[in-house]
């Protein structure tokens, strides 16, 4: 049976890419709506992307 720590790792591996993808979606959505490169939407998207990518990278590094 999957242990609770295993589920936690799996959850991170699923949610981190989801957050990163949401970040990209926010950026594309903002730009398509006419937002500039320093608009709130783009900055928020970059933050989401960075958090998602960073968390995923850390989970991979912890596994290895």
């Amino acid at each position, binding site marked *: *049976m*999957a242990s609770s720590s*295993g*589920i936690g790792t*799996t959850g991170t*591996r*699923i949610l981190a890419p989801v957050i990163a*993808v949401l970040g*990209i*979606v*926010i950026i*594309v*959505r903002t730009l*398509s709506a006419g937002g500039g490169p320093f608009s709130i939407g783009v900055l928020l998207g970059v933050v989401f992307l960075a958090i998602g990518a960073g968390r995923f990278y850390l989970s991979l590094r912890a596994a290895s």
Partner: protein
Amino acid sequence: MAHRVPRDQSLQRVHGTGALFSAAYGNVGSSIYYALGVVAAFALGLTPLAFVISGLIFACTAATYVEGTVMFPEAGGSSSFARHAFNELISFIAGWGQMLNYIITVAISAFFVPHYLGVFWEPLRTSPGDIIGGIVLIAILAALNVKGSQESAKLNLVLAIGDLATQVLLVIAGMVLVFSPDTLIDNVDFGIAPTWSDFALGIALSMIAYTGIETISNMSEEAKDPPKTIPRGAGYTVAAVLGLYALLPIIALSAMPVVPDPAGGFTTELGTTYAGDPVLGIVENLGLGAGLTDALRVYVGVLAAVILIIATNAGMIGVSRLTFSMGQHRQLPERLRQVHPKFRTPHVAIITFSIIASIALIPGQADLLATMYSFGAMLSFTVAHAAVIWMRVRFPDRERPWKPRGSVPFRGYRIPITAVFGGLGTFAAWIVVMALNLETIAIGGGWMVLGAVVYISYRRRQRLPITETVKVVLPEPLDVEEVEYRSILVPFEDDPFSELTVATATRLASRKRRGIHVISMLNVPAHLPIDAPLPRQQEKAQAKVERAKLIGGQRVTGHVQRIRPGQAPKTIIEEAEEIKASAIVMQLTYRNRTPLYGKTLQGVLGHRPCRVLVTADPTRDSSGAPEPPVPV
């Protein structure tokens, strides 16, 4: 004497390049009947370019599928690739995305059938006629699939050729009658008609035109010389689809140019008046005479409706096969892949997903269906590209009977350019379809979350690991890999169905359509006429044939034969001679773990019209036992 063929010399498969092309085109070519109008509504004058760009992504995706399938020739497509490259969780995500594709294929194909049948009765072209018609069609096909209908491969082939010929005819007629380069140029005002975001969405949506790409991989097991015929068949399909999907919008937009609309934007009749039946729009605007136009309308209407019905059915068959495959890998609850006790078909899956397809159809929004398809397909294709790239890293030395041309070096590995380009393209399209259509991200995200919850809770309840492959154990075939047989006869009498016997026959048979024939004999007592109504026994006998088909797939045929008691050996021998069987596979039954060499087995062994193989499983008596799950 048995006709034995050493396995390594026995690649006598049935489908050549032409057959593969026809089947693949038959599936992919149906999509234009709904894709054209949906894409034109967004991409306007750049619709041909949108189709060309998505066509290039399609070509790369086809290359990825061919490489992955030839490497691991098994059902599942992207789900299977992800299993080998990554883990079971990613495989599930790809499979669940694919499931959404199949459901939306069912919904969108069924939704457009009434539009084309509108040539006979106008109300079918509009809501609620199209919605009701689509739901009725799904219900009928679901009932037929639960009962266990069979596709006619020959009919599909004829229709695919008719479809291709008709589309070519329309392109030629359009080129002569309406093609206008000036109109096409005037149709486009970069950044305004269409806007860049609408053009990007148009590219993502035009991917729906390539519904059915997985056919190329699904037919691999029946292809002659797969490393040659599959890439050629796929290549011809890509070329034909790319050519026609670029030319048809050119003709359509020459005949139905982009014009300003009252709201201050731009529009084309292709994406409005004829959004529901765009190919009929081309016919009506070719400028032919009234009589010829009417005749062509009826012809195209009927042809399109039939092709879309077949596409709907293909989607439904895809759903049931995928459910079965995911169920076998313990990705979905057993309940979902449960087989009907009478018809031996996965009825729960068929009914459940038909209901979901019908619900998806109720809003009557083709563009919502298209974005939902794009969401599932792009996710699934992106995983397929990533898996094929990762397999180059993970299994660099593994034999690849076919590889696409062009690769880039990366840390000592050769990464296929097609997978990189295709992966970036499908990922970008996935992002675009979510970013520019918030309904899609809400519904598609909800679908994926639902799947993840079902998967994780099911695996936890079953005490199974989340990321490891766990497969339902099917009986292992006998270890007879050194030979193959051209055709196998599997007889069943009153004995219970044996999965081991069919699995053994499947392994023994050459990979050839109709390689295995099941004869299910029904003993009719002497005091009854041979055609006496015996519904319960008849159903039981037929169920064995259907279960064999579920295990052995398309290569299995079968029939129920009524016999008198004691006639079984003679019937089996005659049947073996008639079909020129190279081997007969029979089961040895056990009672209280004691083998029973019954009269039928003795009789067949006594005459031996060909090699007779007897399967034996002492652990299983006549009552049968459920298969325990074990990790693979």
